[in-house]
């Protein structure tokens, strides 16, 4: 009896609310934007900052969905398995979409499972040591690693994070043959803890997004010894990777982009290219992001795909060479 009443009630409601489903033009309802990391992280803040101009461009509300866990894998899988109707998209990040696929054999997705509609933000990477350290340059660091293998350590925000790969890649580029044995990797939980570890002397150096280091550098708590970009970064008094003759390290940058599941239609992907273009030309947005140390540079869908694949290949080659691939 009661069930029937409820049924009738549901039917009544369904008539009134399901009518707009018939409308044609995409998007005609709110779009879920999955953030595969927790609230307050770099990806989350980047996503929520672009959400404002992006909502204007899309013309429908964007619902931010934090699904954190397993280094971005949980959120990524949610989008991988989502309907391809363009109402569930992902804020993809360097960690979840080029480092993790390169390092983790058990990852339930590959780059092939996603369709990238644009990379909108680049985060330069900087390496830094504690301000009172006797290491003053990359050369000092390298000679210390060579002189006493196993005494130098670097911190990261976890296994399979960009920071983890970055430390090994930088040492490898500077001629350390076996960086995994020569330097100790100390994984922490989260980027903030990783930077703090260098500050406390738990680890010797860190290579991470310049934005994560900016305030420590400004406060003279950490000393930058290299930035990986070709151009110097404002506030970082350190040589670039090009200055040091290691142009390969330019590939080592963080990024944030938007992706949908594979098989999302060309039409939707093209529309999103347009939305991102409109959003990234918003001056207010650019100003906010640059205040945090990001570089706003929009890549077209195809360019994004090529960029990410390129980065993945370099990382994968390094991981295979060093035997860093995680199988279990």
């Amino acid at each position, binding site marked *: 009896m009661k069930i029937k009443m409820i049924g009738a009630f549901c039917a009544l409601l369904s008539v009134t609310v399901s009518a707009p489903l018939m409308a044609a033009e995409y998007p005609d309802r709110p779009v879920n934007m999955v953030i595969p990391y927790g609230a307050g992280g770099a990806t989350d803040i980047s996503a929520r900052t672009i959400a404002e101009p992006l909502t204007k461009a899309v013309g429908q509300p964007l619902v931010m969905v934090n699904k954190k866990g397993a280094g971005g894998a949980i959120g990524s899988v949610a989008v991988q398995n989502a309907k391809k109707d363009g109402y569930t998209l992902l804020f993809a990040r360097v960690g979840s979409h080029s480092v993790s696929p390169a390092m983790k054999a058990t990852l*339930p997705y590959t780059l092939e499972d996603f369709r990238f509609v644009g990379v909108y933000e680049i985060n330069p990477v900087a390496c830094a040591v504690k301000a009172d350290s006797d290491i003053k340059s990359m050369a000092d660091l390298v000679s210390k690693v060579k002189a006493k293998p196993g005494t130098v350590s670097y911190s990261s925000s976890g296994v399979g994070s960009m920071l983890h790969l970055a430390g090994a890649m930088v040492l490898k580029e500077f001629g350390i043959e076996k960086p995994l044995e020569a330097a*100790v990797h100390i994984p922490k939980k989260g980027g903030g803890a990783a930077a703090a570890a260098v500050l*406390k002397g738990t680890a010797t150096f860190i290579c991470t997004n310049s934005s994560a280091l900016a305030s420590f550098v400004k406060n003279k708590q950490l000393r930058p010894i290299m930035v990986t970009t070709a151009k110097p970064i404002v506030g970082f008094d350190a040589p670039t990777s090009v200055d040091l003759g290691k142009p390969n390290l330019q590939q080592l940058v963080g990024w944030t982009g938007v992706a949908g599941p594979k098989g999302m239609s060309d039409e939707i992907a093209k529309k999103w290219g347009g939305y991102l273009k409109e959003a990234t030309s918003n001056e207010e947005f650019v100003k906010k992001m640059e205040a*945090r140390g990001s570089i706003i540079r929009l890549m077209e869908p195809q360019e994004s795909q090529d960029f990410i694949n390129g980065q993945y290949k370099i990382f994968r080659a390094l991981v295979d060479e060093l035997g860093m691939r995680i199988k279990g």
Partner: protein
Amino acid sequence: MDFLGDAFLQNIMAGFALVANVESIAALGIGVTVGVIAGAIPGMSATMAVALTLPFTFSMTPITGILLLLGVYKGGIFGGSIPAILIKTPGTPASSATVLDGHPMAEKGQAGKALGMALWSSCTADLISNLSLIMFAGWLASFALSFGPPEFFTLILFSLTIIAGVSGGSLLLGFLSAAMGLLLATIGLDLVYGTGRFSFNDTNLMGGLNFIAVLIGLFAIPEILTMVWDPSPKTEKRTKLGDNWVTFKEYKSCFKSIIRGSFIGVFLGSIPGIGAAPSAFLSYSEARRKSPNKENFGKGEIEGVAASEAGNNGVAGATLIPLLALGIPGDVITAIIIGAFMIHGLQPGPLMFVTNGDIIYGLFMGMIISSIFLFFVGSVAIRAFRFVADIPRSLLFPTILILCVYGCYAVNNSIFDVGVMFVIGWIGFVMLRYNIPAAPFLIAFILGPLLEDNFRQAMLMSGSSASILVRGPITWFFWTLTIITVVAIIRAGIKNSKTTAIE
């Protein structure tokens, strides 16, 4: 960092001028209100509330925006105690210790008293925490910097002795409960090698069990299951709010515990990475250890509520110490607040005291005011929620079930988490049936991973040499404290068994 002298007074005045305007005061009021409401909803943790408020602060002046976030944070930490007391469901992880005595009080018809004490104790601790921030920021921050993995390891080892304090009647059952918590906390990806532990290549399990899902599952769901097991009205427990309000005499009798809890909170808050829940438990177990009514703890002892709430609110102001003095976020919430600083081009750290001293002192003044706001908003909230106590149980329990499902889902937008909550709920029910205490499970679940991670990080630092675990005075201090506590527990156990034997 010289906080005394003319410059200090000048800064205080400048800070006061910055805060004494309608917007800042309004931001604090709104923040605390939003926080209390969000905290009172299980699953809507203070962290989420702060994250959701962040975008609104982008367009405000720095001081207004940050005060808004701080208001939400402080309100949220207190708000969590309301459902913890009324429906045995901690609104935020920080209020899980409040359940231990707060809910039994509510069952005895003293919900009003428990809520009142929670509020008074929260406000007192909040004020102490804020004052400590203002006066000892520099000193405590340098202390926090000397906490590397070995120091953390010893601190957490010591904190695990809390388990003995919340084990109720049987120490061994408490240990059993703790062992299960430790084991469940290992699910996920290995910290050092990134390999799966009990994750069976399932993506959801790779992320580990969500803490809030475990928390709600452990406390709220067993209550529902008990109701399902035996819905007969004769076991209907009274949860009337009544006119039973906390008296000043009671406050005075708990004052020592409140002060102790506040300083435990300040200490743990100023070391990045521990958080409010362990602090509340530590404060609770210390209060129990020192109390003459030891036996009454866990059965509705008002001092237990006071100590727990002092412990978690004592953290709130102090987490800003590493943030402001070093630029290190102590937990997720302060990480979000750092984001708010950066959006406005401010970079927390020692230099900020020089370059933007007025903003820092403005924050200090604002935080003092926020304690006052917390008191008034909290009083209103308690009265607004009093109706919960009068809802018939057969309506209340379905409501709690639905509320838990919504809240648990919302934490990480995950149906899997809802499943985790249900499964833990059944485990919790079995534990309840056989008098196995739930609190040690929870403490172990929080502290176990911290203990293991810091141990392994220390081993990585030293090349697997154990000598790093006794590398300095801080480690010696905590080793000594741990040994003393363990000996005391064993002696109390033997004494207890002797008296039982005589009976």
